[in-house]
């Protein structure tokens, strides 16, 4: 009997704490699967960004190489073909 009362009291106390707890609004999907997909997408996003940066860097290097050779300037005396 003593044990049952003790269990009941502790149950009530825990329930009281739960009731008094502030409800926190989920600002991020709570399901583990959704979370996994989001983190995976973030990693892929960064791979995409790094890839784009590498492509732009390569393009920039090529432009700088052409500029250093001086062949990017338009020749004014070039004959035009109609």
């Amino acid at each position: 009997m003593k044990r049952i009362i003790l269990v009941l009291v502790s149950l009530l106390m825990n329930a009281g704490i739960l009731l008094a707890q502030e409800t926190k609004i989920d600002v991020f999907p709570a399901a583990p699967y959704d979370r996994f997909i989001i983190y995976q997408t973030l990693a892929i996003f960064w791979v995409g960004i790094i890839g784009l940066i590498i492509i732009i860097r390569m393009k920039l290097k090529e432009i700088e190489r052409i500029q250093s050779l001086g062949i990017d300037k338009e020749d004014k005396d070039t004959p035009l073909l109609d």
Partner: protein
Amino acid sequence: MSYQRLKDWFEERYDIEPLRVFAKHKLVPRHKYEILYYTGGIAMFLFIIQFITGIVLAFYYVPHHEFAYKSIIEIVTKLNMGWFFRSLHHWGAQLAILALFIHAFSTLLLKSYRKPRELLWLTGIVLLGISIFFGLSGYLMLWDERAFAAVRVATGGAGNLPLIGNFIKSFLRGGIDVTGETLIRFYAFHVSLLPLVTMILIGFHVFLVQYHGMSIPLSQEKKVHGYTPFFPNLLYKDLIIWLIVLGIMVTFATLLPPEIGKKADPLAPAPENIKPEWYFLFLFQTLKFFPGEIMGLNGETIAIILISCGIFFFFLIPFFDRKSSRGEKSVLFTWIGVLYTLYFIIMTIIGFLS
């Protein structure tokens, strides 16, 4: 229609040759501090992101004190990717203001405000002020207890200004206290008035940058080692930096989405340990250092007057710094710039830690 035909169609109607020639001849000097040229571009990029994410959020947000809080919870919990767009808008704002502060302080320290760029400085500082007001008005949209208390403190602080204080406070609040009227007003500022003024000012600011060209710091005038064409070299570099900033913003938005507190209750006391957004911390901390009463006068009013004077001096600094305008070294204003920068950083850190 092929690209060439489209191009021909356009060129038959509009003469864009002068623009093309201008883009080709725009040069950017190379020196020790050239990295700081990118901060303005970063801020502009973040403004564009803010416009896009803001428009998306405005489709679902209800600007009424009864429904505002609920509509945000629905955006975050029910809409597909709603949490992400809200978080992106939040972090975009933080990074945009950070970029603007870095841009402003670097301009101050390198004295890029000097003749003939005074108007550039003035438009830039007004844009910084508008961005801060963007932040404050956007914060109230949440209509939770923290946002409510922060706006009450901020508008109350403005009310301490002598003569015009009460008018500003009533104008911002739309009444005596922060109510549903304030929310409607702040919403109107946030989605119509401020974006309109921002677009006009950014347009004018960018036009002035093109008109005057890039400023070279006084200390670097004889150390410039060549010029880089803006198009395409610097544009590509800008793109790289924007991609990195986008990556950082998305990472923050994903890993640290902003919390939502309890719904605002005008009758409830302000929550404990309330702090404003980080860009208000230096003001908040300054106000905290002032006693309630100084020689029989209200301490807060004195603090607000001193802060306003400091901001006013900061705003008009190009007109006070005569030496820099003449192209001479001005040690005094270098120290003033350092003092402003350090004060902002130290007070923000103290405010954050206390």
